[in-house]
């Protein structure tokens, strides 16, 4: 018995020593790995993408972006919220020869031409008070949410804009435990394998909801750390307080990776929380943790290699895109800065990638653009913050 205990202690000791040795080697590896040894995808902005819009169209706040299987880029913008002096040709009588609000949903081909456009109120559905978020699923259907007032639903259309379904009823949100309606849903992601839609819900509610993508039936939902969501007001974010046990609104993205992790943007909490598809909490990471107000974690996209090795995170408050290594959640570098020139941002809001690895971004507030960042391969990281990434002249 005594002997057996000694053996157990000895084994435990050996395991501990081995563990220490492994940890030490890992530590040495990290220490030796100065920043210049890090590798990350490189990008430069294409200042002339997309092409000028036709018909004197201008964009409102661009608050959703998706890339489809043809590498077409879809955006949704707040066409209805343009000021009169900007949508001056739409006024009755017109104020000036320019400009007109573009239709809310625009589809660009890879060259940057507008190839289709639609959106707005129609028969059989409630167009959102303020549309928000767009995705195109494996069946080529287009989903949008809405983030203001009575918006309690998501809409599904064919890619040509024919109405297919509305899930949730306008004005009927009953809070974060409602099993039929949403609370100003921000973004939709559809899992082709299970035909389930993940809804970042949202500006009113504090949860992720998973529904059947064909019927809209609620399957499951969860709050921060996988907790039951609670709509009690938790006040303003305080970076020095213990991490909040609930999401702070808006819950701004919920995207699923190839290895089955759901990345949730808990925007005003400056964090991403990762879950299994069943809602089991996996881990969290804080980003620019001192950021107040709108917060730092606005939207995510995955790199297009088979393993999705990198995660791109849009921060519309610090005006940059962070490039993270997805397995460690380490920030490798960032691109972008504040401003109105190419490669700069004002309220960078939504992000997506095409099959070639290019990044596309949209800007809300007065940014009001969609921009393309051309993928230039993997290379050593030379700067933590690259700032404005321009092509050489």
């Amino acid at each position, binding site marked *: 018995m005594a002997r057996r205990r000694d053996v157990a202690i000895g084994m435990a000791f050996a395991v501990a020593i081995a563990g220490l040795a492994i940890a030490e080697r890992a530590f040495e590896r990290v220490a030796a790995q100065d920043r210049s040894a890090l590798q990350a995808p490189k990008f430069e902005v294409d*200042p*002339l993408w*997309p092409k*000028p*819009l036709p018909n*004197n*169209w*201008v*964009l409102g706040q661009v608050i959703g972006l998706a890339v489809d299987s043809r590498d077409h880029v879809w955006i949704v913008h707040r066409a209805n919220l343009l000021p*009169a*002096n*900007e949508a*001056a040709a739409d006024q009755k*009588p*017109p*104020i*000036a*020869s*320019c*400009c007109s609000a573009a239709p809310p949903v625009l589809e660009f081909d890879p060259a940057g031409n507008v190839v289709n456009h639609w959106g707005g109120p129609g028969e059989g559905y409630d167009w959102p008070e303020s549309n928000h978020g767009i995705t195109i699923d494996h069946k080529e259907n287009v989903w949008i949410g809405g983030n203001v007032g009575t918006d309690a639903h998501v809409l599904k259309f064919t890619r040509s804009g024919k109405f297919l379904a509305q899930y949730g009823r306008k004005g009927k949100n009953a809070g974060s435990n409602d099993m039929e309606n949403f609370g100003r849903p921000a973004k939709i992601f559809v899992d082709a394998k299970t035909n389930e839609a993940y809804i970042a819900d949202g500006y009113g509610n504090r949860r992720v909801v998973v529904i059947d993508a064909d019927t809209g039936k609620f399957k499951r939902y969860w709050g921060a750390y996988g907790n039951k969501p609670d709509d009690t007001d938790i006040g303003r974010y305080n970076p020095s307080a213990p991490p909040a046990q609930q999401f702070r609104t808006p819950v701004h993205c919920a995207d699923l990776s190839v290895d089955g992790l759901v990345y949730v943007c808990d925007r005003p909490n400056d964090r991403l929380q990762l879950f299994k598809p069943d809602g089991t909490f996996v881990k969290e990471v804080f980003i*620019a943790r*001192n*950021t*107040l*107000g*709108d917060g*730092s974690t606005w939207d995510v996209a995955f790199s297009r290699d088979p393993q999705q090795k990198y995660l791109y995170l849009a921060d519309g*408050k*610090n*005006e*940059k895109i962070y490039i993270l290594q997805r397995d460690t959640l380490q920030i490798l570098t960032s691109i972008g*800065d*504040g*401003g*109105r*020139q*190419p*490669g*700069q941002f*004002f*309220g960078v809001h939504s992000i997506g990638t095409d099959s070639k690895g290019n990044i596309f971004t949209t800007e809300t*507030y*007065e*940014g*009001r*653009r969609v921009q393309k960042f051309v993928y230039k391969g993997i290379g050593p990281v030379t700067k933590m*913050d690259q*700032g*404005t990434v*321009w*092509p050489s*002249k």
Partner: protein
Amino acid sequence: MRRNALACIAFAALIVELAAQTAAPPRFQVDPLWPKPLPNHWLFGSITGVAVDAQDRIWVVHRGGDSLNARTEMSAATKPPTADACCVPAPQILAFDESGALVANFGGPGAGYDWPRSPGGIAIDAKGNVWIAAAAAAQAPPTGRDAPKVDPATLAKADSHVVKFSPDGKFLLQIGRAQSPAGNDSKTGLNRPAALDVDPAANELYVADGFGNRRIVVFDAETGAYKRHWGAYGAPPDDADPGAYDPSAPPSKQFRAVSCVRIAKDGLVYVCDRRNDRIQVFQKNGTFVKEAFVSKTTMGDGSVWDIAFSRDPKQQFLFVADGQDQKVFVLRRDTLEIVSTVGGGGRWPGAFYGVGSVAVDSKGNLFTGENLEGKRVQKFVRR
């Protein structure tokens, strides 16, 4: 022999003359990567003036924090900051070289002068001195549900002066007192002057006065002494409000928003009568010469925001920035006929929102500044 030579010369002159008459309008291509990104996470506010100096440096004046959104745009400049990385207002006067590198910056309150609450246009005189107009409207009382009650007497009055600095930002001269708006007959005061230009020949300062008054007023550029002033058609300006612009009414006898004044080499003075959608042309003494309407049906802020001249010896073309129709018109200066346009609405390179300033360098390249939420300076390369 001698007659042949003369004929030859005459023929050559005729060719030149013909070439001059048929010169094609200049064509441009936007340089999307000009200027270089600002340092220090600086942002432009709404741009109110652009000028080019004798060294082809491009000077820009903008409204700075006054025009930037504290919650979303200058998050690193608020107390406390709400973001670490971005952004803060840039100094309000910036100069760039031809490559787009920032070569000078200054601006802000200092001893001996009143910094504008909100600037108007900018001009660089023959000595390289920097003039800016102070164009802010009277401060509006706070509105909204939670707005504090404010004693109207504590609200700022309209800006009413112009300030002259050396090229390195040393204060030289102020004309008019701050927050002391004066009427159309004042010889000492101004009311929201919008823009200015300096006539090197007479060393006189021309002020487009402006958003409050309805006149051009001329001062000695050295002493600031009043010289003369005039209103639309060279008539005395009138303080009476002419009301809203009506394109179908007879042309207004008074200016509505005098937003620019530019002196051509041949001595003609071009005035932007912005909300009347027209250019009026004068001699330097205020004698009316002619007028031309540009996009006459434009309502709102009007069509004629700023004017620049092409850089050929005869200044054959006129560029008119129209921040309501979001384009720059190219006009023949002799006929004031529109021959071309540049731009369109939008936030991408080459598109505009509120293009209100225009200037040309010695190579004929065009520079624009965008007011409102445009907040960019752009370069259009002469092709």
